[in-house]
Structures are given as C-alpha cells and as structure tokens.
C-alpha cells in the first residue's frame, strides 16, 4: 500500500547509492516497498514506547502474518508464499530498519522453527505446524544455546532418553527469543544417537519458559530460558529427518542469511537519521553537515552500507543458485553486523546529546546491534570459521 497523502507522509527512502534496485526484480521491489511501508505505518509509531517498556508489540504478529512475512520462502501448500531468498532478505532488511527485535521474531519463527520443520519434519508435523505458524496463530522458538554452552553447542547438557514410545527431556536453554510466548519450542538435545530436535509444546508437564528481564538490548523482544524437568515428549514430536549438530547449524545458516540483510536496514535507518540531523542542526552558524569531520563520517557510512548491500545481494544470488556455503553466510553476517554496529555508534556520536534520547532511533539500534553482534555466532566465531576455511586449520578445536 502506498496510500500516503502528503500530510501524513511517513515514507522512508533507503540509501541506494549504487542503484542496487537495478539488480532486483519487479517482484522483489514490490515486496521490499510493501514491507517498508508497513514498517513506516505500523512499526515506527509504536516501537520506541515498546522498547522503553520492554514489551514485544504482540499485535504486530497478526499483521506480519497477514502480509505473508512468516516463513515466506516455504511452499504454498503449507500456507506460505514460496518467495525467493532475495525477497526474504529484503523483508529482513526492512523489518530491522524498524527494530532488530521485530526482525528477530520473524527470523526465529521462519528460519529457526518453520524451516527445520519443513526440512526435517514428518509430513504430519509439517501439516500441523506450518500453516498455523505462517498465519501467526502458533509462535515458535528455537532452543540450542544453554547457560554454560554458547559458542560450543556440542557441549550441550540437555539430554533426551528413550522411554517406550516417548522421550524424557531434561536440561535448560538460555537466551531464547520468543521462548515465553511460544506454542512450540524446537529443543535440541543429546541422545544416544547424537543431537536430535524435539518439538516441545506449551503446557507439557515439566516444561517452563520464564522470561529473562533486565536487558539493555532487544528490549522490544521476548528473551527466555527454557527449563525441561523430566518432560515426556512423544516420539511423533521428534524431527525424524536429521541427526547430529548439522541439524541446528543448518538452521542457523538460514537465520544468519536473514541477519546479514536485516542489520543493513538498521544501518540505513541510522545513516538516514544522521544525514537529516546534521543537515538541519546549525552550530557555529552553519549546518553540521558542512563540516569536514561530519562529511567524512557520512562518506564512510555510505561506503560501508553500499558494500554490505552488494555482499548481501551476492549472497542471495549464491543461495538462489544452490552454491551457497555456510562460510559465505559467515562472511556476510560478520561483515554486515560489524559495519551496522559501527554506523549506529557513529550516528549516535553525530547526534550529540540528542543521540542518547528516545526521540531518535540510533541509540536503540546501537543497543540492539550489540546483541546481534553476539547472537547467531559471535563476531569472533565467524572470524574463526573464515580462518579455518582459508587455512584448513580449525583454531577452536
């Protein structure tokens, strides 16, 4: 919808210094513009207050579902849109232009829960969960990280033991986006047969998901612990299609792809804000934007955003062609998050004291990106993945 009359204009014009739109299809541009308008009209008016109050704006779930943004690349037969990876990336970019918390919700729902159910689930699991999740009627979360095992998921302590037709799951997960509000949790647990994925349902005996409060980052997003105390899970809830760490790691590759695009949206929002602010703010009798130090910062932002846009677009093309490797995704996640965080910090600096207030977006983005820098593979871990890829020597084993 583009029905913005001049008096209510809330349009956002993303930086496109290299005419990247020429590389997109008409359909991809339509998806991008639709998501962009949605964020302007429905996210921007509510996000600051939600962030301050540490509340996920749950009314947005139905709206993003109606637009088709949950699991958009999965096939139509499961209630999804069957979009390509670049359209998915653009959706993430535009949502994160609003807030990393909203993009995180969509990443977890689509890439970390719907995708593995689609890729590794039984037909019955797919029929039961995917249409409900696409419609936003069921919320999912993904449990891999544990209190004592972050970058080293192979050390997980959560165990699932076979008991007749069921499994008994014990353990704890931490830093789980959507945990408290989830209807289904994809929990990865060690079995005698290696790591396997189990669909734990809200209300199962012994399964609780308390919210983790007092965050300075991703405040408009629900973060939780998952506590499993002798939870009895039917074998029908086990994902039959994958065993071993490649299961959860392949999910992370899907989600990191979206993150690489998403953070560029946050960077574009910060650049836009810094540009407008410094053009309007007058000091020493002239606009801040006329000073060389400011221009140098803007030039650096434009350069890095443009490079990130090219990286993410190429990553999308590799994914389309089936040539993508997890290391390709690591490079894009590592680079784009790092640059977005630097841009958010620089924007905060350029806005001076105003930059620390809730009147402006840059500090909210900056604080969010500190989480994104750490989650889904820390910056350091992606560095070592690339290091291993080019030397053939793993630094962490």
């Amino acid at each position, binding site marked *: 919808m583009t029905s913005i009359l001049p008096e209510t*204009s809330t349009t956002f014009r993303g930086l496109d210094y290299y005419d990247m739109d020429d590389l997109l299809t008409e359909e991809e541009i339509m998806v991008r513009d639709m998501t962009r308008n949605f964020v302007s009209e429905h996210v921007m008016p509510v996000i600051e207050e939600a962030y301050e109050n540490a509340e996920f704006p749950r009314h947005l779930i139905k709206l993003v579902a*109606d637009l088709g943004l949950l699991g958009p690349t999965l096939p139509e037969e499961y209630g999804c849109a069957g*979009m390509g990876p670049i359209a998915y990336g653009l959706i993430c970019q535009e949502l994160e232009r609003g807030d990393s918390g909203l993009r995180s919700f969509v990443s977890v729902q689509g890439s970390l829960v719907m995708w593995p159910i689609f890729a590794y689930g039984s037909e019955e699991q797919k029929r039961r969960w995917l249409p409900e999740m696409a419609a936003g009627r069921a919320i999912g979360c993904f449990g891999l990280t544990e209190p004592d095992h972050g970058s080293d998921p192979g050390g997980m302590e959560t165990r699932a033991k076979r008991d007749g037709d069921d499994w008994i799951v014990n353990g704890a997960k931490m830093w789980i986006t959507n945990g408290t509000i989830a209807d289904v949790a994809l929990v990865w647990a060690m079995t005698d047969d290696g790591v396997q994925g189990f669909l734990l349902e809200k209300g199962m005996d012994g399964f609780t998901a308390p919210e983790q409060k007092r965050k300075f980052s991703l405040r408009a997003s629900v973060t939780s612990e998952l506590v499993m105390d002798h939870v009895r899970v039917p074998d029908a809830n086990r994902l039959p299609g994958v065993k071993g760490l490649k299961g959860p790691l392949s999910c992370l590759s899907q989600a990191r792809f979206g993150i690489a695009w998403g953070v560029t949206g946050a960077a574009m929002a910060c650049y836009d804000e810094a540009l407008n602010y410094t053009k309007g703010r007058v000091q020493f009798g002239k606009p801040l934007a006329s000073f060389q130090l400011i221009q140098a910062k803007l030039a650096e932002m434009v350069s890095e955003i443009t490079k990130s846009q090219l990286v993410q677009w190429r990553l999308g093309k590799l994914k389309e062609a089936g040539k993508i490797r997890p290391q390709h995704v690591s490079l894009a996640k590592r680079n784009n998050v790092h640059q977005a965080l630097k841009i958010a910090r620089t924007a905060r600096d350029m806005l001076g004291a105003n930059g620390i207030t809730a009147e402006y977006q840059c500090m909210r983005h900056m604080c969010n990106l500190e989480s994104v820098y750490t989650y889904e593979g820390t910056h350091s871990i992606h560095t070592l993945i690339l290091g291993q890829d080019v030397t053939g020597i793993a630094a962490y084993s």
Partner: protein
Amino acid sequence: MKIMVCVKRVPATDSRIKIAADGTSLDTTSIEWIVSPYDEFALEQALQIKDADADTEVVIVSLAPAAATKELRTCLAMGADSAIHIKDDQANTRDAFTTASALADAIRDAGADLILCGKMAVDHDQGQVGTLLAYKLDLPCVTEVRDLKIDGNEVIAERAGGGGTKETYAVPLPAVLTVTKGDKEPRYANLKGIMKAKKKPIEELEAAAGADHMTVKVMELPPERPAGRIVGEGVDAVSEVMRLLREEAKVL
C-alpha cells in the same frame, strides 16, 4: 459485475520536485513512482465489492510508459484480476483530454458496469480525467465519492457536499465515479498476492497517436517560504497571532 479502475503512476508524494531543463515538465530522474493514492482508494472500493461477491471482476486500466509495469502489478497483487496497459511513453505529460480519450477507447472495447477513478492524480492535481471520461463514454458521473455500494442495477454513492452535508446518490449502471479518501483503508499487496499477480494477465494496447490538446507553457516551483517573523512577545502577542492565523494563514 465488471469494475474498471483507472490508475495513474505518479511521483511518490514525498518526492523533491525538480523542473526539467525545458522548463515545462518535471525532471523524472531519481523519481520514485507509486500508484496515485486516490486511485488506491478507488481500487479498495472495487476490491471490497469483489470480496463480497466472487462474480465481480476488477480490471485495472492505465495509460503508462511501456516499461512502467510495477504499479500495474502492485494493483494486481492487491487483488485486481487483470490489467489493461495502454502503452504511452509520454503518459506523464499527456493532457487530461487525451488521457481520458485513451482510457475511454479501452473501456468501451472491454466493456464495464462501473468505472472508478481517483478524484485526482497527485501529480498535477487537476482532477479532470474522471469527469472527461464520463463525458467521452456518455455516462453519469459522481465526483469525490467517499463510499459506495452496489444495489441491483444501481450504485449508491456517498459524498461530502458543501457545508459538511452528506449527499447520497443512486446512479444507474454503468456509471463513472471519482473516489476520495473514506473509511476504507487500501490493503497491502501481501506476499501471496504478489506471487499470484505474476500469473495475472496484462493486456497491452498501443496508445492512439493523438496530439495533446494543450501544451504546458511554463512550470515553476513555488517561491521560497519567507522567513518567520516575531509579532509580539508573551500573552500580548496572542490576539495578533490569532488574527494572522485567521486572516493571513486562513487555517482557523
């Protein structure tokens, strides 16, 4: 029921307008194009009739440059069934009379029970095409319709009259209505709609090579906004500010 919705591609409403070197047209480099918002209101009215009656067919018709298909696809993604693209690379500088002629020819050939237009395109803000189209097609016309519904062989159209009155008309079909903002918010083109739109037909017509009936002599930007002025200080200034708001700015 077959509803034709006439749409125009216009510069996004927050575009920074620049005049081209010829001094008579817009500089369209780096312009982002959208469907004119009033046309979206018209389309939403048509789609709500279709939502309630599956036999209703909604057809988009637009005079637009050959390469400009994104706006047509957007309308199809919102839910229209098909589109007629009258290709004209000069579409944006065509005068209203020529535009209405081209639309009327296409609508006459395709046939329609109801023709909806936005009350105006938000580029030149002239608001002529809808009424000229009714004239060309020899059909009755109601302008600036806020809401409408079909009742048998009539369309019931509601509009704001002078002095805040509400006027409700019954018009025999076929008819032409121009639509303004009402309570029906245009829907988003969601992902499923965008995927479906890829398979929906766009019929391409060549615009008849008719000459414009008018030419633009000069196009100028408005004068720079004058600097603010201080009319007094404290409470003493209130009456003067009120007077200026009433008499000069005419906003009260």
